[in-house]
């Protein structure tokens, strides 16, 4: 899913300090699952903004919290947000950058403020409360050749023909020798499966046209 990190409250307060009416909108998609931007967090954000703005001498600001199912769905945003936005000039979106932009596209007369920094697409280890980036959406998946480890994302240099010389004891120098070298992982998995021919296979230069932004799919 899409992993976000809440912006520091001070930063959000600074963005909205001159607003008179703010609707804080949560998203029940990825950000709710990671407990960063769902209904609960939207409510907390509304309270914090109210208090923070009061401390800045803004006592009369109208603030309310709400949440919709998915801010990345244009129709859902249009239908569910329209009645809620009545009487508000500004939106603080608790969604990822996709949600923020979808709301901004549809309600272009409203001022929109992001409450999150969108970080990456990753997996969630709930035991240790950790998110790890797993996919860069390169547009030409080769996970079947690399033992299910993505070298584009998990190798710090996105090498297709790794490893480089920057590993020791199986760890990558980027990040201070704490993270596994993706290409050592790939080697170990392919070796265990008796498929080292896939390791020694040469992978030619990538076609970056396949990941040229802005990307679109369908709609014709």
């Amino acid at each position: 899913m899409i992993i976000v990190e809440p912006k520091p409250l001070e930063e959000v307060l600074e963005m909205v300090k001159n607003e008179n009416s703010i609707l804080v909108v949560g998203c029940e998609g990825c950000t709710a699952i990671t407990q960063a931007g769902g209904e609960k967090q939207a409510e907390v954000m509304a309270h914090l903004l109210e208090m923070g703005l009061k401390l800045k001498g803004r006592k009369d600001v109208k603030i309310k919290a709400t949440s919709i199912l998915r801010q990345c769905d244009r129709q859902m945003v249009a239908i569910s947000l329209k009645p809620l936005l009545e009487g508000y000039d500004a939106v603080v979106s608790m969604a990822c950058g996709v949600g923020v932009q979808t709301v901004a596209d549809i309600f272009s007369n409203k001022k929109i403020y992001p409450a999150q920094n969108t970080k990456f697409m990753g997996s969630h280890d709930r035991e240790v409360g950790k998110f790890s980036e797993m996919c860069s959406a390169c547009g030409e998946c080769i996970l079947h050749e690399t033992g299910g480890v993505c070298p584009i994302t998990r190798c710090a240099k996105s090498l297709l023909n790794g490893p480089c010389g920057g590993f020791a004891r199986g760890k990558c120098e980027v990040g201070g020798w704490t993270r596994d070298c993706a290409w050592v992982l790939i080697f170990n998995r392919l070796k265990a499966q008796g498929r080292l021919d896939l390791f020694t296979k040469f992978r030619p230069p990538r076609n970056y046209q396949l990941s040229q932004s802005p990307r679109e799919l369908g709609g014709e």
Partner: protein
Amino acid sequence: MSKPAYSELMKKINEGKFVVTGEVEPVKTTDLTEVLEAAKRLKDCCVAVNVTDNPTAFAYMNALVPSYMIQKEVGLEAVYQMVTRDRNRLALLSDLLAAGALGIKNILALTGDSVVVGDNPQAKPVHDLDSTQFIYMIRKIVDEGVDLAGKKIHNPPKFHVGAAANPNADPLEPEVYKLIRKQNVGVDFIQTQSTYDIEVIKRFMKEVESIGVKVPILIGVTPFKSIKMMEWLVKFVPGITVPSEIQERLYKAKEISKKKFEEENIEIFSELCKEIRKTTHAAGIHMMAIGFEWVVPPILERAGIRKA
């Protein structure tokens, strides 16, 4: 061996001579004096000299100009190092064509250390190509006269292309197996990272040979500039082992005098060079003594090794 040799380095390797290459490092300056002086000190004992390209991701002078000047002013062949970290395939091709125009004959194709370990860690890393893909690109240029997109090059340059390898790699297997890829793509020679333990070198060479890698390999040797440098390597560079016997010998010599340390240092590394020549199938030695190049000639002399 019917492979053509465009460079002195490759000629000597093909002839089966035990070759020595050196290394110099352009730094953050427009002054070429030091790098030319360093090359002069290596001229009589090295067949070619590597010119580093933004090593450890520190932004320095472009390596092409000193490579050219060393060939022109010093009369020593250059191995122009190129990292793919800082340039995409367009910029790499531009520089290769310029290098061809200036008479460069050897390229060392490297991925380059990550920008995060360098002196401008905020920079955007390029990595359009990795080092293996860069070797593939150079082969296309040299052998077929076309770039990666298949576009024809007028008067294509003739280069030999080298790659790096790390005998200290832990685990060693992925490091060795990746050399199969580089061999299949068509690399001409390999220069390794510095290694201090002859047993590590022997193990690396044995592994490489056992999986069928036949590319000529020059073993990297870096003498110690000081005890401090040795301590730093041992403490902070994971994967590098300096045998305790060597450490003890140098500590003992240092206690006596600076001169004694220098003598012992030269003795230790000439022994290492001799051992490499005697006990492995290495094609030669790549000496890296940046900033203290004066140490290279006496080491080689004592080891009885001529430049080729």
